[in-house]
């Protein structure tokens, strides 16, 4: 697997995939896309980088443990629902505010925060599983 071509391409491929995953995450509001699929793309990027550069390299590059990312995702997803407590509406009701930035308008909403939480959960758990599996493969090699 660790050919020169793959090793050279993998970092840039992973970088593009990570950016694309954020694009898919944010696009999910009005078009097909969303946190789940974005998280899967990001986790695939991490898995590809892990195959090319080795698991230790990935672990030091992402700094945070994958499971912590997932736990943080659950935490902010739960928090995004709690925000509706202040508005006298049930749990998980979408709340929106709009900012005008330059020419366009930016929507900040609790469904987006929830979706970022989903993104982090999927990214964290799937990359934790992928890295663990790659680690055992390294042991056998």
């Amino acid at each position, binding site marked *: 697997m660790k050919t020169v071509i793959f090793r050279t391409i993998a970092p840039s491929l992973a970088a593009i995939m990570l950016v694309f995953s954020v694009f898919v995450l944010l696009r999910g509001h009005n078009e097909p896309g969303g946190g789940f699929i974005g998280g899967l793309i990001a986790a695939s990027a991490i898995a590809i980088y892990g195959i090319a550069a080795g698991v230790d390299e990935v672990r030091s590059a992402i700094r945070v443990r994958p*499971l*912590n990312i*997932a*736990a*943080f*995702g*659950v*935490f902010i997803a*739960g*928090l995004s*629902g*709690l925000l*509706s*407590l202040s508005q*006298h*509406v*049930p*749990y*998980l*009701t*979408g709340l929106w505010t709009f900012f005008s930035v330059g020419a366009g308008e930016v929507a900040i909403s609790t469904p987006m925060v929830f979706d970022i939480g989903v993104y982090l959960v999927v990214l964290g758990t799937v990359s934790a599983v992928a890295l663990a599996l790659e680690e055992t493969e390294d042991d056998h090699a």
Partner: protein
Amino acid sequence: MATTAHTIDPGDLPRAMLDIATSLNDWVIILPIVLCLMGGAFLLLVREWRGAQLGLTLVFLAAIAALEAQLFVRVLTDGPIAMTMGNWLPPFGITFAVDVLGAGFALAATIATIVVVISYSADTMQREVRYGFYSLIMLLLAGVTGAFLTGDLFNLYVWFEVMLIASFGLMIIGGRKIQLDGAVKYGFLNFLATTFFLIGLGYLYGLIGTLNMADIARVASQTNSPAMIAVAGLFLLAFGMKAAAFPLNAWLPASYHTPDAAISALFGGLLTKVGAYALLRTMVLMMPAAREVLDPVITTIAVATLLLGPMGAMAQTNLRRAVGFIVIGGIGSVMAGIAISGLFGVAGGGLYAIHSMLTMTALYLVAGMIEQVTGTDDIRRMGGIYRASSGLSILFLVLVFASAGLPPFLGFWPKLLLLQGALLDNDGLLVAAILINSLFTSIAGARIWAHVFWRNGREGEAPNAINPDLKPVAAAVKRPTIFASAVLVALILFLGLRPNILLESAQIAAVGLVHPDRYTAAVNLEVPDK
């Protein structure tokens, strides 16, 4: 639908969202579950900070218990309450609907969890804490509480799976061979059960087009078409498997004795009761007409479970496997409640499940202490603890009597209600089975008690030879374990002696299930006229 979307005025659209403000007080419905999930996530985030894990877990659990106690008192006095997520109009959103049954089960589950966490606190190895032991416990409680409080059938499926995945993790913590063996059987059969549940759910959705429990009760409670009976049969199969009712009980004695005693206690207390709760909810509240048709099947299952549970316990040499069979016998009582199903039956079945949550947790904890004192799990090699610790023998004997349903212990009251209901129905078979179950359970428990406590030595040796394996209780068992188990047994004793509040709540819960008008009214269904 005929007009194109361009010309529609927003005011013409059918209403989809609530337009009344939600009272802040209603948040007690959802907060216990949110707190479980967020607390579990937070504990996972700070899992390197091991010293604080236990303290934080107890703070979260205490907050959850306080919220659930408040919720219980509120539904007891004011009737059921509901909240539909995301401000959607029911039945479009996922509804959480709480009545006395759900709130009582949730409160009992949290109390059992607190006791287990305290009793395990001194034994937990550092390694297990790092693997997220307390996070898994919070996740398990989230699944259990979610299942008790939800008002949506598909959401119930999701909570079942949350509970299942957390219990997988807890069952294999430590990774001994016997745990892997037990977990394979537990995992496959429980996953199969939830898949059967999903099949039934799919058919139900295809038949009536709704999965909101109150809506199902409104639309389908009087239907007994063959298709509806098939759905009820699938639910009976799936939840019967979850509850370990005969003949689908094989996974329980194969797996519950494999993890640590405290984890067995948590499983024995909580998991089968979720299946029992789901049976009460689906059979009595949602499809009573279909249940009527299935009545002979449920009665047969109840009688077989009542008789075979304690008989299995008599045939075991492994202490915790014997306790597992006593748990199964208790499920028989809940099934009997569903078979009787009138007000007495439902009140008795529900109350028995609450009793079973507390008593079975305590029984597993005491069994764990016995194993620690004797250093073995074999009943034949345990003799002589009475001399070493009479206190332990009293705890065990109280629990045996409570699970057999002898007065004045806690198990007596639900059995009394069940007997009253069965007598009203003139169902002699069930009356006999309930009484014989009590007899057999006391025989099985008393046999264990006699071998473990009364006998001086081990089997095959002279009756008055001292068992050399015994360790003094103070040295073998950590203090929090003794303390937590003793407090739980004291609670069981107290509730047995002062059963008024439990009996009254059980009556209210039964009325709520058999005549679900207030439940469906609380969900605030508006019949869509467009």
